[in-house]
């Protein structure tokens, strides 16, 4: 493969991704990709391989496998240049997905040219993802730590609905509560548990 032809096919692949190639050019690209292992074409090869595998799983292909006469298979379009629509065929018929090809630049000069926005879509997706992860992370952290905890700087007690704004009272109350929780008298003693178990079995 000489450099000029590689550049040509790279350009062709780029145009294929942008849905600007004709069917003849797409076939030419497929033929070329079938005979090269150049890693520069991995993306196009993966996308075209995916489409080929997907085509084998379309309802028509499945019916063909089952021996039912297949309807004409819709032409597969490009990854970026196709849409899936639902169509109902006749009364009582089941709806099926039909891949429709959007007009390519070669077929229709009015076809959309790649815009700055389209080129920014992946970057925007990443930015949105990072922002969403950050917001969700912050929200989850807030749920866990701050909503159970009192407001920052607060130090108060309520005794049966009566507020006591006495810092010493609150701290003493806190200490007494923790002494009650962590003192050996309160904390679970394995011997106590065993006594309870054996007494219960008597």
């Amino acid at each position, binding site marked *: 493969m000489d450099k000029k032809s590689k550049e040509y096919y790279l350009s062709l692949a780029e145009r294929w991704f942008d849905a600007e190639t004709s069917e003849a050019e797409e076939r030419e690209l497929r033929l070329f990709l079938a005979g090269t292992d150049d890693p520069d074409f991995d993306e196009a090869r*993966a996308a075209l391989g995916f489409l080929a595998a997907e085509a084998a799983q379309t309802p028509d292909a499945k019916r063909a496998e089952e021996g039912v006469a297949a309807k004409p298979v819709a032409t597969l379009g490009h990854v970026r240049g196709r849409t899936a629509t639902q169509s109902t065929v006749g009364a009582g018929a089941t709806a099926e997905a039909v891949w429709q090809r959007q007009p390519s630049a070669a077929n229709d000069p009015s076809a959309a040219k790649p815009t700055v926005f389209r080129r920014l879509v992946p970057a925007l997706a990443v930015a949105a*993802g990072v922002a969403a992860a950050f917001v969700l*992370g912050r929200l989850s952290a807030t749920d866990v730590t701050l909503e159970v905890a009192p407001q920052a700087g607060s130090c108060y007690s309520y005794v049966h609905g009566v507020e006591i704004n006495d810092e010493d009272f609150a701290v003493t109350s806190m200490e007494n509560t923790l*002494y009650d929780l962590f003192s050996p008298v309160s904390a679970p003693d394995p011997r106590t548990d065993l006594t309870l178990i054996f007494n219960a079995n008597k």
Partner: protein
Amino acid sequence: MKRLLIIVLGILLPLSGMLMAQPAYAVKKVFDGKVLDRGSVVETAIMGKQLAAYHLSSFHSLKYAAGTPEAQTVEDLVLADAAMANEKETVFVDGRLTYAILAFLEEAPFNEYICYQSDGTTATLVYMGGSATLDDLKSIFATKE
């Protein structure tokens, strides 16, 4: 391939954010005043420098009458949180929870604890957070001054 990677990352990052999200504690609704009548509890809340000596940054406790349907609800909520705790010490007497220390250590060095104690007459529910480990707290509060 680079584009595919970028698109996949764009999809996976929000998903990972959701997966990392942790649910709020079940006992949160007790501290929010949605279970117990505020007029019947003794509440203490401290968040600030007063707790520095104990390596804690927040403390919130509720003392209330045990044996009521509301107290049973609190017990159930504590048990729900116990299922998610990294470390826990629980004591049951006649099928009732009487003592629980639940440690949530995933955000270390910021540890969180939910404690519960009931003697059949009075019950205490505590939330606290800080850098203190369970051993720190036990050694500090093992003996009453």
